[in-house]
């Protein structure tokens, strides 16, 4: 079951944004997110907005999806213009899901082409797609690269069969190096996603997964602690005692192990759950989220942000397609952040980054929390004295507590 959307203000049908969205827009970066809401099977732990039916009704079928998404691109361009937000070339593009590569490569490149036609691509722009290892071929990856993609992020999750099984992953472990090799051949940069702390995963299992992933020499690794999302199959299995519960201490141990191994292999952390081989290899799209840049998210349930206005689309692909057919905004709701809330978000988001937060930029309460954070060994002492708050390893594991202390009132 996909998770719920936030509650917000109603969004107008014409998609026109409040005035604050346009303020200073020309000096901000712009990104595009494209949500592809389809998967071959739903993994037991996943609550993303994705559907396994091939024939959803009302123009929402997988076959019709690329055209529908291209409609939103056109709608977005009109709405931004009507809102006084100047068109900017896209710095990053990210196709996420669901499983984008469940659609033919040509569908993905046609959506990308529609966006490039509207906005253009910035020099050296990063264009990523997520992919499941068993949803790509040598040819499809080549087609993506030819169509403008620069990067692919594979959902590897684990190298250990019994862990993959608990996660409901369908791919053969051997499929991952194969897919990576094809991606490299096509000239794509490669990232792999891992999940740790799956019920039944031992520390040795996790070490195997990390070492295996590093053996593929990816440019980038994301490692996520498994979250048991309400309403998922896995949550039900745990509640009924069929699968053991997850454990925060186990997560902490595995995070530390991952950081140690990944760092030893020459990659560096730039965000709590992300490591890159070089600073240029860091996922620029991901950074855009944490830095509070502008992006338009197309697709059902996709989230967008422009100048302190956040909105989100209706979740169901059919409802989404119908809105666009009527020429209406697919937005389900939005919120316009005031200055104070934007500041809260800035601290909440940038605290997680290796680039950290300028101490001088903090509100007084946050500044007075710094000494305590140093004493608790949650932030790097030397950098803190140099005026920058950067989490220590312990601090990364307690990042939410750090944010609460910085925002204490």
């Amino acid at each position: 079951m996909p998770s719920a959307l936030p509650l917000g203000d109603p969004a107008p049908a014409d998609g026109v944004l409040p005035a604050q969205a346009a303020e200073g827009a020309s000096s901000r970066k712009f990104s595009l997110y494209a949500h592809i809401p389809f998967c071959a099977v739903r993994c037991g732990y996943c609550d993303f907005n994705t559907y396994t039916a091939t024939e959803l009704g009302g123009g929402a079928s997988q076959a019709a999806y690329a055209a529908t998404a291209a409609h939103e691109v056109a709608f977005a361009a009109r709405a931004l213009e009507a809102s006084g937000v100047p068109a900017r070339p896209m710095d990053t593009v990210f196709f996420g899901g669901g499983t984008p590569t469940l659609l033919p490569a040509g569908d993905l490149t046609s959506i990308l082409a529609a966006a490039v036609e509207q906005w253009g691509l910035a020099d050296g722009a990063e264009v990523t797609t997520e992919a499941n290892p068993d949803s790509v071929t040598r040819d499809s990856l080549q087609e993506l690269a030819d169509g403008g993609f620069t990067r692919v992020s594979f959902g590897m999750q684990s190298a250990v069969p019994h862990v993959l099984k608990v996660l409901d992953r369908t791919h053969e472990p051997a499929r991952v190096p194969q897919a990576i090799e094809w991606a490299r051949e096509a000239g794509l940069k490669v990232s792999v996603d891992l999940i740790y702390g799956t019920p039944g995963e031992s520390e040795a299992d996790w070490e195997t997964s990390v070492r295996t992933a590093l053996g593929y020499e990816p440019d980038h690794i994301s490692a996520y602690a498994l979250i048991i999302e309400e309403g998922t199959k896995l949550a039900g299995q745990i509640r009924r005692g069929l699968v053991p519960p997850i454990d925060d201490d186990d997560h902490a141990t595995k995070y530390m192990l991952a950081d140690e191994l990944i760092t030893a292999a020459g990659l560096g952390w730039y965000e709590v759950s992300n490591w890159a081989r070089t600073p240029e290899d860091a996922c620029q799209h991901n950074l855009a989220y944490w830095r509070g840049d502008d992006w338009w998210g197309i697709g059902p349930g996709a989230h967008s942000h422009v100048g302190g206005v956040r909105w989100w689309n209706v979740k169901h692909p059919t409802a989404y397609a119908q809105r666009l057919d009527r020429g209406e905004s697919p937005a389900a709701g939005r919120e316009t952040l005031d200055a104070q809330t934007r500041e809260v978000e800035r601290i909440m988001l940038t605290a997680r980054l290796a680039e950290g937060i300028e101490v001088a930029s903090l509100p007084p309460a946050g500044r007075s929390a710094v000494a305590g954070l140093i004493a608790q060994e949650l932030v790097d002492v030397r950098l803190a004295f140099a005026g920058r708050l950067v989490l220590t390893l312990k601090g990364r594991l307690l990042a939410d507590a750090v944010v609460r202390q910085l925002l204490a009132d």
Partner: protein
Amino acid sequence: MSPMARTAPVPAATDPAIIRNFCIIAHIDHGKSTLADRMLQLTGVVQQRDMKAQYLDRMDIERERGITIKSQAVRIPWEVDGTAYCLNMIDTPGHVDFTYEVSRSLAACEGAILLVDAAQGIEAQTLANLYLAMENNLTIIPVLNKIDLPAAQPEKYAAELANLIGGKPEDVLMVSGKTGVGVEELLDQIVRELPAPKGDPNAPARAMIFDSVYDTYRGVVTYVRVVDGKLSPREKIQMMSTRATHELLEIGVSSPEPTPSKGLGVGEVGYLITGVKDVRQSKVGDTVTSLHKPATESLGGYQDPKPMVFSGLYPLDGTDYPVLRDALEKFTLNDAALVYEPETSAALGFGFRVGFLGLLHLEITRERLEREYNLDLISTAPNVEYEVTLEDKKVLQVTNPSEYPSGKIAEVREPMVSATILAPNEFVGAIMELCQSRRGILGGMDYLSEDRVEIRYRLPLAEIVFDFFDILKSKTRGYGSLDWKADGDQVADLVKVDILLQGEQVDAFSAITHRDKAYAYGVMMTGKLRELIPRQQFEVPIQAAIGARIIARESIRAIRKDVLAKCYGGDITRKRKLLEKQKEGKKRMKMVGRVEVPQEAFIAALSSDESSKDKSKK
């Protein structure tokens, strides 16, 4: 079969010979209120369309819990063989906490309907109230109720009842308060069997107060039963225990709405209004007389209500303290048994130590405070009153563990109760095991029938106020019932167990226990707290101690992970809302030293239920 009375006897001019004063005594849920409803309907006192279930249980909370807290008296007419009689039905509270009120209601009657659920049989409160009725020399009419139930066993329980009161099973009436079957016969029987009240109409007036209720509009409404003489409107009356005088602004009868009358004569039951605003000025059990021609001797039996169980009540939100104070003040207007005084707790802030008649009284009061004044309250674990004699012979009354003196104690006395437990005989072993484990001393055991046993124990009150009844119920699969009354005190080997978080004592968790149980309490409470207090950024030792001696310890390991790693596809709103929720949660924490303790942890640690286990963390 009798018709409804065509002409009702007029108050103040009613010959005692046609008056019948009765009450219904029953174990909780055996159908007393329902039967009373049927009687009101049959006698035409309440119109069909005004009828609602449990008409006499006025307070909302009574309706919801289906129990009767305050007694009420209703005057109902009934005709037998062409004579119109006046029946006064007094609805008594059914719960053990209100035994004294029950005994006063009984004293206002000549007879009692002993009502027993035909599917359940006799239970402890049936018995306790029956004994009270017998002490008051009431004539007993045995009645089996709910005979419409498929599970009813009328023959079996008629035999049990007959055996108990020494009659014949055939004489036990069979009724259904639900369908009304047998209720007319019961009314006839009341007229035929119950004695008429006796009294001297020419003697100085004496009326016994059996209930006293505060009403926002009319002040205190006092319910009385006239024994001798007569009370008239506008006359000056005197309370015999305090000698306080009041003017009778209104006098009347409930039928069941208050109806002013020309007075009340011998044997009559009705209400008085004097304009007083506090039930303490019109106390249950007191005797009312007339000021001009006062009686010299009171009717006797008056007793100051004595709180037995004490608990600290604290507002969750400290700013609600004045609201709580005002609410308690208002409550005492209507509840002579409620006593309170301010107290402070290092952990819980400002609150009150409140004395109650028993656990139900506590629960009902707390629930009403929360509901009627929109308060969120924490109540500390209930405890009893101890008498502590120091070595220097000074004597202290301790109602709060944090006042328990440290050292130099010569003797501690604790209140005792005599308890009666009724249950099917297969549970005797389990019940005795429970009572023995609660430091009980077996007083005796009787078979009420083939398979039903009455077990009597003398127990420390402290051992039964907390979870005894719940455990008894579960050990007897719901069949066991309990009644108790105060029974002096005894010397006991008691100690105070303190709970420390990171070396800091948390007064709200201190308890006075028997020395043999101190360890169990320490283990239980430290274990509970370990489950309830979230992990902090440092390790938190939890200790239980008697004085300086640690008797149990647990520890909450430092939290290692507090970060949400997943990025919800750009759903920053969700992330921020989560943060706001966490911050909200923080605000509801109480700081004990450096340790953040959620309010819920206090509530759960102080309550007896086991459900808190579900919320445990790893």
